[in-house]
């Protein structure tokens, strides 16, 4: 059973560690060691780095969404004084970035993404451009202002083709093909599940409800844009690439591949990162081109993506359409789910996840927290003339949770049941539970979170507020979303999806130095989550060290053995377990060394107070002070002649961790109260409650920060943000005036309540916490808006919820609504 925790104070700052304490540091609000440098302006972000002789790069980009390239003429660019080089695809002749799945062509069509478009093809043509913003040439100049002057001098000639700007358009009869290899513009078409006899379940069911839902294209939008600084290091014989990425080793692999180098010849380093949210967990084209330019010029080259490019030519996310039906019995038990998912993945597959990441995620996990006995799903990705997509925080889960939660609400409405009660009758309550989707769910608090969320809303009086408002003709609504989130996908889970490149494990190396302090490496990559702190907490507990004596090293492919970076809420689960395992190995080493030196057995020794000491009452004559870590290190490094014959000198250990089976599921219920303004159609959030369970929270304020920040992004998707394109494929959001990131004014304070169902197999009992907020929020907001609209009879299923649409819906009178529903 989960244990409740009294940590719902919105002010997380001065709170004693209050839950999940499994050690001295894990479970405690340890101050983030990242903070002092970041609040004093002494962080080191990519654009803060300057090296002597550094040049500045920008890209000539396509201004047409879909066209045959006729010519890329850089003559005038090169003639501008101050321009050092301008390279087209033909000049650099680099390999493509190709993401693959181990699936047949009927299910997956690969779309190699050239580093620069416009390379001469076998037939002598220059190929095509496939979205506005596609890079065609890299221009390098002495000055970042001048390089933009130079871009204006490029002469590019196109032969325009019809632009594909919607899923309908892509799949229409006779539509132009974005990639000739992909008939019907379909890149992925997978039917993962089809329970036998499901059609009969639908035809025999008491009630069938349907939801048709679409979600807008979004930008993950880290405040720090992408960027890279590359330099050829003659002494090391290496290309050193500083770049803000969530996946440094994957960037190394692709860079080496595209440039024809061995992996040892590429070193990727990651400075402080200003957010990522998934947009930086794929390999971009620009960083490779920058690397290639630096390699040729033998000079450092820096590229900082500007905001216009970040909004239009970077990786986007989220645009999906669902047609989903669910069958229910008279009491509101779900009997079957049938879904057709279409994802608009844009112009290319991203590396390493491919254009299949969204439909495979949706197909695999759509039944969500509910006991769904019969399930059929078809998941497709289509390609379009829009910027490609990357796996943004949540990846399909915000959308399918929204659809599932709409189905629950719609069923409740049709069956005249309370929507929370319908959920209650369907959520998984016994664990482990193996679903119709062949996934085994580890223990969680699905029902408990639902109950606590509803109770909180009730106790705070929001149902009374709603009743009073309705009596006055005002539009107040209460909405819920109940969901779980698989975190820490191991290699088994990714292999099940049949990825050719299978992420999953993490590997850590730990070293104790002569000072008796340790350095631990992690292959995960913090981009704002505070891994330098949380990983140190885990190691400090394991080795009974002061947390200040643990240094965490990440983001350097020469120093970190290997890593899959940070995405899919994997860092605490997998990375945290790997650093814990490495520390565990070192602990054994330390005890063995001390036992050898003290002439006793390791079993009677333990780590305590900065050394290896005899276990009280078990230490059979061992000196009670044992040996300190510095004494042990002194022997291990400086007096190795004292070591046992079979013992290697030094104090280091390497350990890895992977998730066996289907991983671990965090869960939460969100509740949202909104009021609609009939005069403008604006939605105002009156209250937001999140009851979450991510197992043991290693650092509670960090977990709450993840939840609040995630919810803010979920609300952004529900109410504000959308990248739209006109019929020619021209993006309409080139500035922050058009891409409406919510401010503090639109973002509500969030009450967070914690439940704790520890994970049974991670080092700390932690489950992942990075994405849940983003996953739950759109459904809660959309349901609340629909509840507010209830007197009108109108139901909305699409996000973002436009004020104009709400305004129009509110014009529908109650009587008209009754008429149409009859």
């Amino acid at each position, binding site marked *: 059973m989960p244990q409740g925790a009294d940590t719902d104070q919105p002010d997380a700052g001065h709170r004693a560690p209050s839950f999940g304490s499994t050690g001295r540091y894990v479970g405690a609000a340890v101050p983030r060691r990242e903070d002092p440098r970041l609040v004093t302006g002494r962080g080191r972000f990519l654009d803060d780095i300057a090296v002597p002789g550094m040049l500045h790069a920008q890209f000539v980009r396509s201004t047409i969404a879909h066209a045959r390239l006729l010519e890329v003429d850089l003559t005038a660019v090169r003639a501008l004084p101050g321009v050092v080089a301008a390279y087209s695809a033909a000049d650099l002749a680099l390999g493509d970035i190709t993401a693959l799945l181990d699936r047949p062509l009927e299910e997956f069509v690969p779309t190699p993404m050239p580093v620069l478009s416009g390379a001469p093809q076998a037939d002598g043509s220059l190929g095509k451009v496939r979205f506005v913003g596609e890079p065609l040439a890299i221009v390098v100049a002495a000055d*970042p*202002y001048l390089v*933009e*002057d130079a871009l*204006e001098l490029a002469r590019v000639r196109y032969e325009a083709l019809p632009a594909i700007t919607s899923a309908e358009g892509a799949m229409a009869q006779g539509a132009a093909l974005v990639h000739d290899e992909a008939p019907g513009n379909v890149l992925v078409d997978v039917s993962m599940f089809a329970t036998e006899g499901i059609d009969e379940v639908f035809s025999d069911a008491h009630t069938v409800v349907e939801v048709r839902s679409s979600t807008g294209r979004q930008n993950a939008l880290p405040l720090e844009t992408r960027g890279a600084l590359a330099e050829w290091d003659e002494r090391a014989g290496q290309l050193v690439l500083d770049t803000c990425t969530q996946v440094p080793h994957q960037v190394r692999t692709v860079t080496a591949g595209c440039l024809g180098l061995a992996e040892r010849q590429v070193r990727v380093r990651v400075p402080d990162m200003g957010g990522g949210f998934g947009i930086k967990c794929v390999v971009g084209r620009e960083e490779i081109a920058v690397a290639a330019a630096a390699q040729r010029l033998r000079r450092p080259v820096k590229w900082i993506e*500007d*905001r*216009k490019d970040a909004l239009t030519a970077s990786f986007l996310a989220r645009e999906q359409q669902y047609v989903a039906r669910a069958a229910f019995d008279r009491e509101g038990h779900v009997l079957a789910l049938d879904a057709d998912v279409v994802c608009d993945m844009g112009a290319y597959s991203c590396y390493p996840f491919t254009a299949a990441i969204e439909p495979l995620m949706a197909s695999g996990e759509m039944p969500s927290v509910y006991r769904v006995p019969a399930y059929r799903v078809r998941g497709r990705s289509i390609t379009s003339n829009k910027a490609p997509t990357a796996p943004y925080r949540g990846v399909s889960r915000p959308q399918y949770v929204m659809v599932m939660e709409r189905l629950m609400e719609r069923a409740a409405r049709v069956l005249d049941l309370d929507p929370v009660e319908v959920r209650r009758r369907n959520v998984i309550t016994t664990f482990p539970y193996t679903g119709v989707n062949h996934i085994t769910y580890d223990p969680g608090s699905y029902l408990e979170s639902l109950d606590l969320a509803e109770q909180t809303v009730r106790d705070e009086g929001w149902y009374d507020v709603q009743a009073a408002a309705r009596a006055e003709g005002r539009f107040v609504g209460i909405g819920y979303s109940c969901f779980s989130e698989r975190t820490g996908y191991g290699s088994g889970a990714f292999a099940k999806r049949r990825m050719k490149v299978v992420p999953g494990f993490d590997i850590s190396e730990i070293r104790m130095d002569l000072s008796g302090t340790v350095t631990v490496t992690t292959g995960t990559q913090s981009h704002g989550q505070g891994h330098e702190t949380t990983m140190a907490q885990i190691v400090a507990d394991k080795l009974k060290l002061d947390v200040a004596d643990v240094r965490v090293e990440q983001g350097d492919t020469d120093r970190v053995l290997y890593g899959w970076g940070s995405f899919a809420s994997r860092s605490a689960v997998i990375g945290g377990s790997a650093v814990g395992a490495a520390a565990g190995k070192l602990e054994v080493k330390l005890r063995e060394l001390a036992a050898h030196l003290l002439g006793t057995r390791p079993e009677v020794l333990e780590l305590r107070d900065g050394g290896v000491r005899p276990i009280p009452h078990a230490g059979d004559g061992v000196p009670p002070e044992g040996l300190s870590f510095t004494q042990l290190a002194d022997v291990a490094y400086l007096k190795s002649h004292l070591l046992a014959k079979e013992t290697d000198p030094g104090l280091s250990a390497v350990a890895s961790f992977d998730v066996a089976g289907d991983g671990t599921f965090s869960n939460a219920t969100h509740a949202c109260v909104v009021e609609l*303004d009939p*005069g*403008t*159609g*604006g939605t*105002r959030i009156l209250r937001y409650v999140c009851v979450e369970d991510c197992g043991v929270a290693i650092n509670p304020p960090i977990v709450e920060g993840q939840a609040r920040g995630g919810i803010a992004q979920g609300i952004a998707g529900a109410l*504000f943000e959308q990248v*739209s394109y006109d019929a020619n494929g021209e993006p*309409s959001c*080139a*500035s922050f*005036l*058009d891409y*409406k990131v*919510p*401010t503090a*004014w*639109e973002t509500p304070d969030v009450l967070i309540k914690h439940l704790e169902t520890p994970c049974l197999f991670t080092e700390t009992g932690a489950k992942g916490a990075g994405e849940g907020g983003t996953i739950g929020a759109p459904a809660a907001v959309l349901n609340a808006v629909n509840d507010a609209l209830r007197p009108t009879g109108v139901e909305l299923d699409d996000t973002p919820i436009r*004020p*104009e649409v709400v*305004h*129009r819906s509110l014009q529908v009178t109650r009587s008209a609504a009754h008429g149409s529903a009859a």
Partner: protein
Amino acid sequence: MKPAPFDYRRARSVADALGLLAELGGEAKVIAGGQSLMPMMAFRLARPSHLVDIGGLGELRGLWVDDDGLHIGALTTHHQVETCTDPAVLAGWPVLPASMSWIGHLPIRTLGTVGGSVAHGDALAEWCLLTTLLDAVLVAEGADGRREIPVADFFLGFFTTALLPDELLVEVRFPAPAPHAALTEYAERHGDYAIVSAAVSLDLVDGSLRGGRIALGGVADAPVRVPEAEALLTAGTTHPDELGGVFAAAADAAAAAVDPGDDQHGSADYRRSLVRTLVQRAGVQASVAARAVDDDRPAAVPAGARRRP
């Protein structure tokens, strides 16, 4: 997103600025606070060959009231207006400080200027709406001296004003006090340009409504007045119930009178609906402000504390 190159000249006086404009010709652009110009230059949507910086001309900065009304120097920042404590300004034109919180955000208002905003001529800018509402006079200075341009002749269309290339806007003057006025607007996000904005000023005499003015932004290339709706602003009392009906009728008339266009921020129908909502709300706010003034209580919408929509 770096601006195209330009030459920069700093004006030491108004005369110096005029001399520079005459010397440099039509390619030169005046920069004051730069809060509208610089984003356009960053996107290279504006690329003047020369910038004449008038930011240092202290003589164009400040607010004062005399027999000719309220004078606001062109270089007065929005923030100076917002934080103005001059009782004469607060009594005669409380709508001006109260409206400032609609202009972008604090860090924009500290550099952005009244004159810059008016000269930029953005139909959605609050100062364009306020000058239109209150029959302001725009004072321009050229080689031949000063001329006064009534606001009705000033905003000519999309980012187009009656200001000549070699003229400098030096002052914005509000001839008549407007103690009972309010501006409101709607945008999806705090601090954004409005989809539609509305401002209402009421003539209240001896407890009755004797007329008023209504100005709208976001429904045409330039701010517009709506005489059809203004004509309905009469009532024998200032009782909220009766005024509510008057404002509703005026709002309907305003919505019927305008002919807005469609764009990604809102359809014509939606904009018309917003006109109806916002005229009514601005009317109520203006009358509440009026009652507050009459009751000697603070205004309902204090500066810097915009209410949630």
